[in-house]
């Protein structure tokens, strides 16, 4: 699946997108998997209150199901332009 990071998540993780083959059934599982990839990921996903997720450009919760061709995005709450 394709994973996108925005704002300070992108900065902490050090990349804006990556394509991973993750055997996670839902968003919470994907986050657990990502946290294990290194200290940048761990720092990015430390405070889950500040993180929002979208699957295929629709806002979802942590229990949202994931498929292999999904586009998953993580970002902080929006701040306006």
């Amino acid at each position, binding site marked *: 699946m394709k994973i996108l990071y925005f704002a300070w998540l992108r900065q902490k993780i050090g990349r804006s997108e990556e394509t991973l083959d993750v055997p996670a059934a839902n968003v919470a599982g994907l986050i657990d998997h990502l946290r294990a990839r290194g200290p940048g990921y761990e720092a990015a996903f430390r405070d889950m209150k500040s993180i929002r997720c979208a699957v295929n450009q629709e806002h979802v919760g942590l229990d949202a199901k994931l498929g292999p061709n999904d586009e998953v995005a993580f970002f*902080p*709450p929006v701040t*306006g332009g």
Partner: protein
Amino acid sequence: MSEIRISHQDFDPGAEIAAISSVKANIGAIASFIGVVRGDDGLAAMTLDHYPGMCEREIAAHVTEAKKRWPILALRIVHRVGRLVPGERIVFVGVASSHRGAAFEAAEFLMDYLKTRAPFWKLEERKTGSVWVEAREADDESVKRWQ
């Protein structure tokens, strides 16, 4: 006729206004707004991040809402992303309608949304360093009055 454009490039206010001015014979009012980066509070630059595709779709949903509330004949939103320094234009909103009340209100409604709840993330650069702006409270006064 409505267009939403997210762009790294600057825009020409006169050209944007011209684009919404001549589409219908019953246009009597064109209200427009331009936002500019202010430098009077020590801001050195700001960088706007966005999620291409999802950003346009979310703004389009608010344009649909505005069209339900007011008789809009033409509408254009241009929002810049990337690094912007004080004095640079950030945003253009232009609304054409038959009457001035509808044009003004729809433009202000869209600007309140764009400034407070549109899907952008803002990094501010100051002498003291760079900080990602925290999200405002959802019950921001300027948005609440439209609800």
